[in-house]
């Protein structure tokens, strides 16, 4: 996405006020048009006097009943058709994130020691992993599952299942406690976990544990990468349109245990260093009675898939290396492809969320460049006017830096993402929920605020979801940040020397 700064004269104060005035004018154009009309009508009424008004009313009285009734029914029919064809609202009743126990934490020094003690890694591999870890933006409190604490890691299927049970069940237990939802009332269950897909699926595991109904609509999405959380949300939303008065439970997680790469291919070592344990359980509903206690309403979901492009398709690729070990290969042009996918996504998202002022400016700039061939830079709409909060997938420090640059966000906007990366690491599809919880725990979420969740994933996909906050969230918030929020935000240095 082109990111040259606008011409210098735009930073002058006078132009800022001009811009502000323009925004107010265009965004409230209807108000500005209506006010003179109302003033005109009231002046006219005042001038005309009461007799004319009374004569108007008598005229209406003389009309045939049938005309009156037809008009009334027409209005009623049009109103009904309008209300019935509106999509069902999707409310987020509540969500819960897995809280890792601190005895699973992985300090940098332990990570380095284990990398050196595991016989499969040579010196070069170890040094590379340490270099990645130092620049990763992770903190000392991120957690790995129990199997990864062994020397060497015990990556059995049983260990993977037990990690899945640990993270998923504790998130769902917390959610059911918070909402008071009875498991029998869950109508839709969607689970997404990219790298671990046993038979029976993880959704079947949940149905078994919580004794869900036999006519539940359950889905298990696997292989869809870190943006699968938003794909599950989209699926849940579509299902909730088809089925009225339903509750949907969406579980997003990534199981680390079976995916520890024990080879020497450098591009495949990054997930070892960055991925950490996490899970989130979200309760969505389209029942009207949930409106009063729901926290958010889902307004838009936009999905962009760049898989048609070969480079994007092979960007995050799981394959076997020359020794036959399976790992996830991250290509060098990941950032460029991510930027491209983001551009695509916001091109679709922009018209849905941007205020009219920005859209007009973008239109003018586009016309000028394409039709009149003016040598202007492409206008980047200011998304800060459309959203109060941003949750950017904490894929790594580079991803957050790139998005901050592209969208021209301030440090405070990306603070949630950076701090979630520092405290929890890259928890894949559930990272957006840890970031949302950070914003809530800091007491920044007010009624009417709009949140933009952006997820990136293999494929290459860029998905976004827009939420509107329905009630101010009061602190203190009971969530994964309860024990640590008072220590944040921290300043994350560019390079942390491994102790």
């Amino acid at each position: 996405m082109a990111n040259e700064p606008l011409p210098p004269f735009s930073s002058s104060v006078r132009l800022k006020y001009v811009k502000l005035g323009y925004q107010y004018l265009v965004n409230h154009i209807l108000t500005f048009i209506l006010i003179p009309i109302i003033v005109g009508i009231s002046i006219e009424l005042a001038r005309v006097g009461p007799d004319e008004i009374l004569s108007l009313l008598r005229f209406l009285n003389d009309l045939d009943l049938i005309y009156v009734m037809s008009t009334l029914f027409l209005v009623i029919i049009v109103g009904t058709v309008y209300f019935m064809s509106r999509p069902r609202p999707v409310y987020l009743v509540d969500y819960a994130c897995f809280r890792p126990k601190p005895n699973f934490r992985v300090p940098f020094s332990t990570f380095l020691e284990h990398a050196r003690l595991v016989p499969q890694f040579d010196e070069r591999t170890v040094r590379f992993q340490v270099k990645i870890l130092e620049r990763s933006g992770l903190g000392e409190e991120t957690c790995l599952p129990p199997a990864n604490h062994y020397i060497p890691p015990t990556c059995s299927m049983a260990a993977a299942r037990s990690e899945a049970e640990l993270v998923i069940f504790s998130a769902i237990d917390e959610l059911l406690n918070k909402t008071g939802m009875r498991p029998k009332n869950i109508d839709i269950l969607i689970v997404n976990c990219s790298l671990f897909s046993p038979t029976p699926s993880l959704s079947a595991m949940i149905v078994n544990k919580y004794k869900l109904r036999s006519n539940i609509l359950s889905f298990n999405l696997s292989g869809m990468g870190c943006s699968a959380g938003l794909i599950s949300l989209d699926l849940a939303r579509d299902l909730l349109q088809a089925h009225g008065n339903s509750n949907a439970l969406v579980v997003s997680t990534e199981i680390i245990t079976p995916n520890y790469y024990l080879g020497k291919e450098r591009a495949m070592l990054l997930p070892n260093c960055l991925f950490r344990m996490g899970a989130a359980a979200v309760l969505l509903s389209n029942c009207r009675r949930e409106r009063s206690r729901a926290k958010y309403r889902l307004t838009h979901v936009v999905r962009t898939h760049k898989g048609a492009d070969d480079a994007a398709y092979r960007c995050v690729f799981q394959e076997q290396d020359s020794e036959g070990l399976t790992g996830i290969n991250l290509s060098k042009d990941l950032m460029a492809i991510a930027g491209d996918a983001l551009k695509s996504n916001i091109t679709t998202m922009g018209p849905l969320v941007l205020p009219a002022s920005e859209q007009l400016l973008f239109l003018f700039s586009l016309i000028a460049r394409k039709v009149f061939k003016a040598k202007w830079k492409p206008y980047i709409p200011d998304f800060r006017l459309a959203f109060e909060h941003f949750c950017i997938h904490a894929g790594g420090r580079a991803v957050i830096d790139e998005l901050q640059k592209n969208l021209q966000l301030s440090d405070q906007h990306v603070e949630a993402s950076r701090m979630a990366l520092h405290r929890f690491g890259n928890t894949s599809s559930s990272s957006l929920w840890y970031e949302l919880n950070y914003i809530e725990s800091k007491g920044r979420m007010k009624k009417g605020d709009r949140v933009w969740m952006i997820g990136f994933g293999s494929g290459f996909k860029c998905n976004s979801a827009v939420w509107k906050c329905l009630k101010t969230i009061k602190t203190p918030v009971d969530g994964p940040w309860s024990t640590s929020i008072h220590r944040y935000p921290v300043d994350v240095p560019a390079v942390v020397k491994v102790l």
Partner: protein
Amino acid sequence: MTVSVETRRSRVTVYAKSTAPSLTPVKPGKTHEFTALDHSMSRHSVHLVCYYRQAPTVTMTALKESLCDVLSYYPAMTGRLVKNEGDGCGEWMVKCNDAGVRMVDARADTTLDEFLATATDEEERQLAYWEDVGSDPYLWSPYCIQFTDFKDGSMAVGISCTHFHADPTCVAVFSRAWSETHRRALVTCPPFFHPWAFYPRKNPVPSSPHLSEKSTIPPPLHPPAMSSVTFAFSASSVRQCLADLQLSNLSPFDALASLLWLQISSYKSASLGTAQLTLAVDCRRRMSAPLPLGFYGNALHFFGVKADLSSGWSHIASELNRHVSGIKEDDVWSSVEWLHERSKEKAFQMYGPELTCIAWDNVPVYNAEFSPGAIPVYVGCRIGNVQGEGLVVIMAGAPGEGEEARTVIVTLPTDLTAQIYRDEAILKYGPKIMFSPNI
């Protein structure tokens, strides 16, 4: 049950190794320095094994969690050794880099009672896994905690560490703090990190004829293989010993230490004359500014006791009593200052080559209750790398046996061990023999 140890496979199997971090991250840049006493002990290791009956809260998972919790109070334990670049004591110091302690999971193919009755010396050693420092000390955990599950659900917890991090008292206090953390009770003896406790006085008088003599002894060319045997004396046997001595004011330690000294010496040479025994005594409480029990590090004072062994058991016992009660604080300081002077040189063998005895029975070791009211069934302590004539450890006995009960762990050259546990004079008092080299 007369199967020799070479042909019988050990019943203890180690199956996994992992690392336990502390719950709270350590502040970067923290270090722990060693004292002169710590440096002097660097050739040895301490191994403490506590055995517990089956209890619902005493499971491997729960213990590992509480271990991480208690490690938050012990940043020196989770650190790693680095070279001491400054002018502190010794070659090494600890960089508190939050790397954690090593944990080892094991299982024993027998029940707890059967193990305590029939296990050999070798099998007991396998309950406290230990790896010597390899090529890179920075990757080596100075502490190693082994959890062994028995067939009946009982558990043995073995804590091993280098002697220059901690002495046996320190390890026992740690296990007590761990058990209190496990029960969510208040930690009664929190660790006290104060390497300056043994810094030389303003006017040092470094002198330790005993230790200077030890330091000049060259290491043996072919050190003999050592093995151990444990004698568990009940309170009545100890009282019988004291009664036989017919002297008042003697403690169980005096009686048992002198008995063993006499008997061991009698096997070494036919004629008995003046001999010297090295005693190691915990001196935390003997300093005029007494150190708390939770003082982290070494506080063992080594000194020599000479006695004429031909004068009889009573004479030896009273000599021991006189020396132990007559330790002067000045002597402790002198030997600390002497060690401090030579702290940059290589450490010499402290346990050996002459016969050494540790007076450890005044330190409570049976108070590590992981489950409320469930104290360890048995606690054993060993010292690693004992050479020469051997070591006698006298520690508190199992509480069920009475207040005067004592456990005596004798480590001697193999042929001498075989003779000592059949010794009539010792067996006269009916001690229970455990963990012998051959059944």
